[in-house]
């Protein structure tokens, strides 16, 4: 049998338990302070910050990684995360349909809800999604994934975000070409316009159910999944109400959430934000940062055509000249929420890759992903997780293109390990 030498236990930090508890709880002051600062600006800023924090917290707790949802399906025949996302999307569809029906009640007018992610569907969607899929696998995180991993202390994700900025800047410099040759003339296909809300919901439900069953079938081809338990110090069984409360708190703050729980909470937040403002999306703001940095460096991008006619992330790009916008609050909140969640879960740590080529991969992956996100008018959040619930056909096309890109990326990455 195998005898376990505890090789790395010497590295354990000798800090006393109460002092550590205090340090961990002190981190809660950060989101509260940030919220008060945002509230000083406007209620809207504060709302976006709060939603951002909640999204970051959720993504960290569920380790909800859009990349692994697709990559692990191809590399490992694991579909647990993807199945979680599918359930989350189903909840999103129902909630979004309810919100959209309050905006456009009478479909015969031919109107479409302005802020829903109904985007031009064409070659840019396909190519953008495909590039995004390759890039995210190389970088080890999509855009929202890299944001929350930045909060968890992954240096590689900070590098990937640098690549995303460069990729978005490059796309923005070539934006007008894409606009004139493809995006401007691409149709926006909103399922309720032809099928009604009920028809569009039924069609989405059928497609999601097929995707769910298809995932199960693909997983089964690999044989049964082994069950592995993680050995940790077991606390004494609860003996009082105080203990019961501690157990409940551990469930939220210490124990990992299932991907499905995370995906459903994420959809709930998405619906809440859409009720009053717009669906979730993070790329528009990063794209704005890329352009601002370009201007600072003396190479402004100039006028980008057609942004005012688009919803979602491309519209957010035209949001304004100030640094402090809704999108800024959302993205900063996301990093902050993930940082807070990671510290409370004792999972925060500075993670520095030892191998130099990892930085090149993260930067290159980020760059390809950034270009794809700009071209495809959003990332896994904006062009996929907010678009399918918008009952827009572009969400489905983007998803298929991104999955294909992830498949190609998974083949590439085998050679790079």
């Amino acid at each position, binding site marked *: 049998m195998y*005898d376990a030498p*505890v*090789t790395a236990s010497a590295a354990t930090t000798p800090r006393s338990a109460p002092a550590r508890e205090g340090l961990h709880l002190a981190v809660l002051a950060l989101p509260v302070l940030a919220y008060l600062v945002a509230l000083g600006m406007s209620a809207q800023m504060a709302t976006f910050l709060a939603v951002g924090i909640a999204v970051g917290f959720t993504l960290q707790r569920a380790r909800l990684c859009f990349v692994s949802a697709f990559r*692990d399906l191809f590399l490992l025949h*694991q579909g647990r995360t993807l199945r979680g996302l599918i359930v989350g999307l189903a909840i999103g569809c129902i909630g979004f349909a309810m919100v959209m029906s309050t905006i456009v009640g009478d479909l015969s007018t031919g109107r479409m809800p302005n802020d829903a992610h109904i985007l031009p569907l064409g070659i840019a969607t396909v190519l953008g999604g495909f590039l995004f899929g390759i890039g995210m696998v190389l970088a080890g995180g999509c855009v929202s994934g890299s944001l929350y991993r930045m909060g968890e202390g992954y*240096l590689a994700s900070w590098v990937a975000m640098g690549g995303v900025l460069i990729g978005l800047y490059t796309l923005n410099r070539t934006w007008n070409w894409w606009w004139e040759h493809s995006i401007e003339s691409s149709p926006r296909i909103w399922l309720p316009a032809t099928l009604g809300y009920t028809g569009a919901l039924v069609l989405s439900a059928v497609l999601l159910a097929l995707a769910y069953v298809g995932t199960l079938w693909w997983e089964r081809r690999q044989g049964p999944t082994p069950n*592995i338990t993680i050995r940790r110090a077991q606390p004494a069984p609860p003996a009082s109400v105080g203990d019961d409360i501690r157990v409940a708190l551990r469930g939220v703050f210490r124990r990992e959430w299932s991907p499905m729980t995370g995906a459903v909470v994420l959809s709930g937040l998405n619906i809440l934000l859409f009720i009053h403002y717009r669906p979730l999306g993070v790329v528009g703001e990063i794209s704005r940062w890329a352009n601002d940095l370009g201007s600072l460096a003396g190479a402004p991008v100039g006028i980008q055509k057609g942004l005012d006619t688009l919803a979602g992330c491309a519209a957010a790009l035209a949001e304004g000249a100030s640094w402090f916008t809704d999108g800024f609050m959302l993205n900063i909140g996301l990093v902050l929420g993930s940082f807070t969640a990671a510290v409370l879960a*004792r999972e925060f*740590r500075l993670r520095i890759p*030892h191998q130099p080529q990892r930085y090149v991969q993260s930067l290159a992956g980020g760059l390809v992903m950034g270009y794809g996100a700009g071209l495809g008018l959003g990332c896994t959040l904006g062009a996929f997780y907010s678009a399918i619930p918008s009952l827009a056909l572009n969400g489905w096309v983007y998803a298929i293109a991104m999955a294909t890109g992830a498949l190609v990326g998974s083949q590439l990455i085998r050679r790079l390990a």
Partner: protein
Amino acid sequence: MTTEAETVPVLDVRGEICPYPMLRTNKELDEVHPGILALDVLTDHPPALSTIPPEAMKRGYGCEIDEIRDGEWMIRLFKDA
């Protein structure tokens, strides 16, 4: 590195993001030390806990995971000679 019974080699993949911890573990088992009887993989990337063990099990290894400190895990892979 030796493969004597009392010193199990440790593959340190801390700092690495998915899927690299799993790919590096596979490489270690398949190419660097083919047929090795025990390998410890040190990781600080929680998702690796669900990617490394199934791949190692496909190669005939048993697996145990110890949380050795906050946010760090030792994945212990072993098989009979």
